[in-house]
Every structure is written in structure tokens, then in C-alpha cells.
């Protein structure tokens, strides 16, 4: 009887492994990895290794999927620091305004999740490099243009650039990372 159960579980393991390899969306893969850990732990018990099963469940199915969730949710986050307090982005119950429109279209197209924050002080260059802020929106009073500061090495900046080409009153400046050689 135990032999049958172990063969069945191993076939389930192979099916889960194939589905992890083939699947595209990262979020569902986390669930698959958690079940993979659980099935593997039950197989360890069948092979008479309770110690390893406890370790696999505690680490492989509890902490590691949690870390995957955090890191994948960070991958889809587009942090915008808004420093133009003149209605480019209105903060009512429901966010609106022309700036918000542009950003939400851009974010929807690359299925990122928009994260607008207001009150971070500090020099733009350092913020972008250290605090992983992706975009800083400021208003240039002389030319009455909205200036977007971003990271030069980021692929999103190039995508944002060719999306905003047709709008005259928005300018994009990408900050180059200075060379830190020893």
C-alpha cells in the first residue's frame, strides 16, 4: 500500500515540476513551489526521514514562498514620487488628473502596480539610486513643463520615453549612475 502511495506522490511531484517549468505567470508558480515543498516533505516521511521532512516543511514551504511573494510583488511595483502640488495628480478619494492618467496607462500596459508617494525629502539623484524610487515628477516653472527624473539604465525609462514622445509639455531626464570604480 505504501509503495502505491509513494509512486502516486512522485508522479504528482513530476507533474508539479513540469507545470513550474512551463508556466509563465510568476505568482501562480509560488503556489506550485509551496505544494512542491509539501509533496516532497510527505515523500521524505514515506522514505522514513521525519527530521528532513520537518526541515523541508518549515523552510521550504513556509519561509521561502513568503520571500518569493515579497520579491515578486516588489518586481511589479512602479514607485513614483510626486513633487508637483498643482493638480498634475489630484489626491481625492479617487486619484485623478492628467499625470495620473499617463502613468496608469503606462503601468497597465506593463502590468506593474503604481505606487505614488508624496513626502520623501532628499536629493533626487540619491533617492533614485538608493531608495529604488523609479520616477520623480517635478514641475519646471520657467518652461512650464513637467520633468520626469528616472534611471538611465532602466528599460522602463526607454519605454516611457517613446510613449510620451507626442506630448510636448513633458520632458524626461535620465540620471546616469556615476562610475564607482575602486
Amino acid at each position, binding site marked *: 500500500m505504501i509503495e502505491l502511495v509513494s509512486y502516486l506522490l512522485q508522479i504528482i511531484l513530476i507533474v508539479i515540476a513540469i507545470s513550474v517549468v512551463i508556466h509563465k505567470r510568476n505568482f501562480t508558480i509560488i503556489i506550485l513551489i509551496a505544494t512542491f515543498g509539501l509533496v516532497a516533505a510527505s515523500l521524505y516521511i514515506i522514505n522514513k*526521514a*521525519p*527530521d528532513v*521532512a*520537518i*526541515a523541508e516543511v*518549515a*523552510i521550504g514551504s*513556509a*519561509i521561502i514562498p*513568503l*520571500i518569493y511573494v*515579497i*520579491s515578486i510583488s*516588489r518586481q511589479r*511595483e512602479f*514607485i513614483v514620487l510626486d513633487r508637483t502640488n498643482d493638480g498634475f495628480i489630484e489626491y481625492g478619494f479617487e486619484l485623478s488628473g492628467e499625470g495620473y492618467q499617463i502613468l496608469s496607462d503606462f503601468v497597465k500596459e506593463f502590468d506593474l*502596480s*503604481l*505606487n*505614488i*508617494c*508624496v*513626502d*520623501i*525629502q*532628499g536629493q533626487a539623484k*540619491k*533617492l533614485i539610486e*538608493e*531608495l*529604488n524610487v523609479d520616477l520623480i515628477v517635478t514641475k519646471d516653472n520657467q518652461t512650464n513643463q513637467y520633468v520626469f527624473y528616472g534611471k538611465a539604465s532602466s528599460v522602463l525609462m526607454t519605454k516611457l520615453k517613446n510613449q510620451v514622445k507626442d506630448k510636448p509639455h513633458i520632458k524626461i531626464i535620465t540620471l546616469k549612475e556615476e562610475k564607482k570604480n575602486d
Partner: protein
Amino acid sequence: MIRRISLIVLLVVIFFGFLYSVIDLEAFFSTYGKDYFFANGYLETGSLNLVTGIYLDYRLFDSLFEAGILIAAVSGVTWISQHEITEKNASFMLDKQITPGLFITFSRMVYPFMLMFGIYVILFGHVSPGGGFQGGAIVATAILILYYIDSKKATSIDKILTIEKILFLTILAVGSISYFTKGTFFTNPFALSASEAVKSIYLITLNVLIGIKVSLGLVAIFTAFLKEGR
């Protein structure tokens, strides 16, 4: 597309290599280790659970450097995720969602049992299945549930890291006490002929030390991930 097919062909060749070697292995394999431990594993280490006996006494050197790899990874992760900007009051839109009430009450209910089970696994590592590493991981998951109840109570990572390093030094010290009693490093300081209760003192202290160190390490990794870029 050709690459995938050729990859599958290569993997099939490797599979046959594995296949022949496993069949050849099943024909004749040595059980020297199993017989040795079954015969005098309990007598020499004093722990009923032979696996704990092995990684706390026979192969303590491995467990020391397993704790070492945990220290290196934790310090590495915290160093990479650190940033010098002191603005902590950044109220980010995403973090404003508060965890749903049901989840909080349920985790409050589960939290004490998880903690108790983790401590049981650490303390009775040499009798029932379990031990320092598994118990530490369970205690770490219990502490992570605290983050769900309210994530403002995040402790400072630097304090955790210093405690972890001090624990690493104490584990080294406990491991090398045996040099004074038995003349060799990394084993049970009590004589082979000592009673099982005496020997289990050493096993329990090592399990507790490793358990605390592993739980602190995993909690530090988790807080580093949570605080990253905030």
C-alpha cells in the same frame, strides 16, 4: 526550437546514464554506516534520535559551517538591502492596506501553538524527530506571523545580527570544550561512559543555541526583505 529538442535528447542520454548507475547500485550497496550507527550510535552519543546524534556529535564540524553559511548569507542580504537614506516616514500607497481583521485574529490564535511547537522541537531534538535547525525554522515562522499582526513592530536588524554572531562564537566554544576533556575538538565533552542524562545536557545546550541562531537569522533575512527599499 531546435535547441529545445536537442536539449531533450541530451537530457535523455543523461537519464540513461543515471538509469544504469542506479540499477548497478541496487545490485550491491554498502550498509557499513547503517550497521555502525544501529549498533553503537546510542551508546556513544547518548541521543535516541541518531540523526541529531550525527549532526551534533559525529559531524559537528559540518553543522558549525552550516551555521557559518547562515551568518554569511544573512550579513550579505542585509548589506545589499541597506540604504543610507534616513527618511523613514515614507507613507507608501501599497503599505497602507491593513491586513484584514479575520487574518489578524486567526494568526493571534495560531501564534502561541506555533511558538510552543517550535520550542518543543528544539528542546526534545535528541529524543523525538527534530533538532536545532528545524526548531529554529518553526520559531522563525511563528515570529513572522507577528509581522502580520502589526508590521510596525519590526525590530532593528543590526541588533539581531550582533546577537547571532555572539551565538556563533558560543557554539564554537561549546564545540571545543571537548578539547580539554577528551583531547579532540568538536565532540561531546562528557566521557563515553557517562550516563545518557549527562550526555543529553550537551545535546540540549547545542540544540538550543543553534535553534535561537537559526530563528534569528531567518527573521533577519525576512526583515531585510520587508524593509528593502523603504
